[in-house]
């Protein structure tokens, strides 16, 4: 799925990364704990989260995450926004809760970047 299609599907706003809407993604990881993201998320995945601080962008940068999806109506703080622009990491904001985001993406073929822990 492209980021453009994801934006439509989630009735979302692309806050950073308007120039990357053709980027294609196949997998995702949901978490509010950054060390869990660091342990399990794979590069090129979507990071679905309710956190809005700059560490989300740092974490995404370290892992080469394709885009950050901020759910539950959360918006990045000004520092987060600025850092995402600087590091060129897309931020997509939606009012859907994380469960809805995941379900909608799954129904369109997006899969978890791992299914279970210990089964990399």
């Amino acid at each position, binding site marked *: 799925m492209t980021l453009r299609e994801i934006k439509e599907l989630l009735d979302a706003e692309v806050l950073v990364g308007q120039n990357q809407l053709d980027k294609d993604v196949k997998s995702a990881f949901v978490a509010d704990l*950054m*060390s869990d993201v*660091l*342990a399990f998320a794979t590069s090129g995945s979507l990071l679905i989260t309710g956190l809005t601080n*700059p*560490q989300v962008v*740092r*974490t995404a*940068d370290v*892992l080469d995450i394709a885009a950050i999806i901020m759910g539950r109506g959360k918006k990045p703080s000004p520092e987060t926004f600025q850092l995402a622009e600087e590091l060129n990491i897309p931020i997509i904001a939606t009012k859907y809760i994380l469960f809805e985001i995941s379900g909608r993406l799954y129904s369109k073929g997006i899969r978890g970047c791992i299914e279970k822990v210990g089964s990399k």
Partner: protein
Amino acid sequence: MRVDEKPIYEGTFTVTGGNFDNAGEVSSNIKSVLKRMGLSRDVVRKASLVAYESEINIVSYARKGMIRLRVVPESILIEAIDEGQGIADIELAMQPGYSTATDKIREMGFGAGMGLCNIKSFSDTFLISSEVGKGTYLKMIIKTNNRSLNS
């Protein structure tokens, strides 16, 4: 890593304890340095992950510290050295889920008690030592699987 080997890159990055606003900046810089050397994506990712978890721990639990980066053709050496409270029980600190993180740290999304485990599992060699009231020393080596690097 041979001690006498001339490094392709050698650098020291200062990390300030308690400076949560800039936490992660050093790791971003380390990542750019490694990327420019033409190392594989996977190797760069592992090294920046290890640097990032170490940096966040220094910011979270120490007064001040530094991250030293040394790259030779076969491997990347990352050392995280801090002055701070140190770790009384290393075995306990290494347990997944064990954390003494404050609310401030948890607000940033840290405090899962996974950092040291992540560092260990993404490094090819991992060493930790600590002295209570003095500080903590981490040494990580990541193999590059690479023979021809741009300097």
